[in-house]
């Protein structure tokens, strides 16, 4: 009896010790890494979920395009935000956007940047492992940085002086010059360099082997894939933040909207992306389906030939007339069943430093046909003119509707329909992609990294995709790039946005909902499921470890 008592007591004691040690392991260590003054970083602590229930059920997800095995390799991370869908499944980042913060600690438990922006340091949380049980150390962080060749790679490599590994958990990046955007770009929501790849495994299986059978430190392991068609992921119960709630996640590439709709209705799919469009009323009317508006970025119009001689868009009054002629309320009703929000800025309000286009920072653009006609007449176009309209594919119906609005003031458009990749290719060339001076391009780009990222791509002279090159903006942008003062940088970014809007260089339309629909197997029941879309600036509902479904029959 006494023996049994002592045995039980010892067991409880061991359990308590282990629990305390685990709890300690999750607490960030407070000691500083870098000397000298530091920048105040706004990175949220990780929320470690103690719930350790067994994963259950299968979540079948339909993406709206063919799947690319290349997305499974963070070292070749493109600019496409879609890749993060797979990053959040298989891999884990040092810091990344989470529902509790645009920048949240993940593999790193602590980060520092010196006030001169020449050094950045991270401390990894203790006890991290890859899915094969191999420890994740700063050697992997260093290797990932050095081998990274995806988007922004040149910037990362050009600025780097050297990487200092202090110990298995502490690493310092030394830069040749102030690298102000480092923390923004290193964030997993912006580039792939912060998603840590296992050096030992990658060097063993090689580039192709890794894409075919990737391995990381994320909540799900890839168990099988049919290139372009389907990927199957199984929960990895060793994930540090929490045990994934769903046992199996199957991702399918289904291009056709009707097929995704049918899949949801037959129960073959539990979650489908890109349900905006003609079938949205059916999604909304189906009692078995629920949907989330999933606001991404605003639609806007660009005038690539605006500064060419003879272009009607050279005149601000013409650009303003176009804005006045668009009936945004009607468009929102027709295109999104009233979910979208007429909006006065072209950058997503979820992106840091973006001006809110609902009247808070800038007004919702006015709809006034009479005023639009007057402006056109004053600009010397009383009978309008002809132009080419290039809508973002496949939103051709929306393009037709906008062209109808413009026809009401005498501006006659010819629709130019392009496939998605061809459209991106042309937009990627900026003004050069649209020879002539009479094109209007309808675009949307919910990119992360702060409003400055959108400006850097579309509104400055040096960008390959530049649609605006104006001395006034360029002067502010140069000042922004040279400044080490974060408050001043924010002010400059907002000032540039105001110029773009006041001069009607870009004409915002409405904040777009990229509707996602779920089937009845997704938990929780009712409207609480919207929590899956809480991550800021995320076009898809990550993180995946929190998704719950009913158990398989």
């Amino acid at each position: 009896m006494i023996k049994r008592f002592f045995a039980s007591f010892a067991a409880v004691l061991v359990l308590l010790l282990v629990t305390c040690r685990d709890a300690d392991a999750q607490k960030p260590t407070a000691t500083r890494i870098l000397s000298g003054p530091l920048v105040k970083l706004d990175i949220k602590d990780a929320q470690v979920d103690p719930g350790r229930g067994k994963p259950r059920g299968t979540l079948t997800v339909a993406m709206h395009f063919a799947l690319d095995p290349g997305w499974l390799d963070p070292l070749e991370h493109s600019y496409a935000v879609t890749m993060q869908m797979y990053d959040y499944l298989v891999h884990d980042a040092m810091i990344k956007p989470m529902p509790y913060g645009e920048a949240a600690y993940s593999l790193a438990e602590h980060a520092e940047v010196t006030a001169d922006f020449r050094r950045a340091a991270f401390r990894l949380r203790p006890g991290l492992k890859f899915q094969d049980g191999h420890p994740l150390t700063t050697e992997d962080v260093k290797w990932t940085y050095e081998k990274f060749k995806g988007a922004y790679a040149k910037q990362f490599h050009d600025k780097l002086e050297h990487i200092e590994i202090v110990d298995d958990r502490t690493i310092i990046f030394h830069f040749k010059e102030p690298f102000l955007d480092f923390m923004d770009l290193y964030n997993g929501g912006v580039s792939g360099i912060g998603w840590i790849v296992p050096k030992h495994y990658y060097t063993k299986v090689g580039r192709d082997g890794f894409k075919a059978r990737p391995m990381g430190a994320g909540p799900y392991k890839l168990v099988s894939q049919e290139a372009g068609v389907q990927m199957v992921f199984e929960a990895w119960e060793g994930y540090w933040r929490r045990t994934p709630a769903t046992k199996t996640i199957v991702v399918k590439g289904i291009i056709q909207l009707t097929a995704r709709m049918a899949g949801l209705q037959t129960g073959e799919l539990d979650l489908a992306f890109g349900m905006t469009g003609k079938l949205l009323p059916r999604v909304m009317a189906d009692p078995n389906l629920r949907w989330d508006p999933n606001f991404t970025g605003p639609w806007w119009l660009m005038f690539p030939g605006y500064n060419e001689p003879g272009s009607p868009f050279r005149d601000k009054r013409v650009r303003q007339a176009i804005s006045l002629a668009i009936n945004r309320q009607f468009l929102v009703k027709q295109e999104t069943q009233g979910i979208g929000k007429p909006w006065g800025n072209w950058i997503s309000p979820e992106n840091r430093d973006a001006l809110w286009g609902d009247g808070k920072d800038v007004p919702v653009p006015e709809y006034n046909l009479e005023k639009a006609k007057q402006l056109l007449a004053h600009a010397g176009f009383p009978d309008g003119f002809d132009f080419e309209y290039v809508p973002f594919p496949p939103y051709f119906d929306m393009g037709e509707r906008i062209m109808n609005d413009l026809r009401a003031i005498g501006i006659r458009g010819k629709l130019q329909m392009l496939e998605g990749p061809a459209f991106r290719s042309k937009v990627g060339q900026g003004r050069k992609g649209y020879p002539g001076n009479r094109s209007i391009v309808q675009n949307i780009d919910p990119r992360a990294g702060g409003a400055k990222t959108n400006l850097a791509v579309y509104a400055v002279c040096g960008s390959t995709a530049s649609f605006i090159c104006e001395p006034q903006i360029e002067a502010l942008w140069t000042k922004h790039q040279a400044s080490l003062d974060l408050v001043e940088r924010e002010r400059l970014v907002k000032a540039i946005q105001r110029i773009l809007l006041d001069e009607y260089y870009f004409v915002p339309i409405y904040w777009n909902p990229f509707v996602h629909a779920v089937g009845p197997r997704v938990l929780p029941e009712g409207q609480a499921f919207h929590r899956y879309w809480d991550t800021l600036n995320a076009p898809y509902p990550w993180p995946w470890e929190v998704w719950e479904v009913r158990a398989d029959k």
Partner: protein
Amino acid sequence: MKKYLLLRALYSMITLWLLVTIVFAMVRLTGDPVKMKGEVGADPAYLQEIRRNWGLDRPVYAQYASFIGNLLMGDFGHSFEKALPVRTIYFERLPNSLKLGFTAFVISVVIGVPLGMLSALKVNSWWDSAGKLIALLGLSVPGFFVGLVLIIVFGVNLGWLPVLGKGRSALLLSDPSTWVPFWFQDWRYLAMPAFALGWFFSGAMLRITRSGMLDVLGSDYIKLVRLKGVPERIVVVKHALKNSMIPVLTVAGLNLLIMINVAVVIEVIFNWPGVGMLLYDGLTNRDFPMVQGVVLMFGLMIVLLNFVIDVLYGYVDPRVRLSR
């Protein structure tokens, strides 16, 4: 006969070489794939890295030389979009296309050939009108429409059949235990896409069977057989059927290859993972190696089929081989 065979084989090789060369040149006329991959605002250095990775930084003649060299080694190159060897992806998809194509082919034959014969035998009757109507519907109602109707009726409303994909069955060359079951599993997934695809071709089969049969039935030797008092059943089965099937078989062979290789629309609607969808993805993403690989394999099948047909013609009819 040996010389004839060698000559046919040489022609086939030249045809294939011309095909791969034309495809190599044509895909490059569609534009720069790097710009599509690069996303808007991509750093030029990043684009240059992609270009280098894909071998597009070299002169076109060097790309062509390595393309032909790799082909001779059985290597179709790496998919730009899917980042894996084209050969691996293609042969992963091919069994699915074969399964869909063969089943659709059987459906088209089962519908088209008997109805075509019936139409010809009962020409200008109610049966003939019904056959003409079915042929018209088969040729004019597109497969995607039939597919969508099937999805709505049997998938969504009745809930009898699944609407997406091919099920769990897979044919793995490395695993012989999958070789046979693959063809017989998951027929519920196969039913609708195979019918939608087969339906479209059944119209063509019906028409060609009908006209072939009418031609033969109107020929002098059939008239002679009938004058001899041979029963009509024997006339049709023994004397007319075989000869009327020659044009049907030629068309059927080509139809089968089309069903296997370019059933793009049906594959997209039913999310059927076949080679047609690979071609579609490859074309829309300017994935040169993928397009080259799929078209080359399609061409190879056509050339092989033609070669076999030529050889059979030469074997059956000595005049053919002697005239060449």
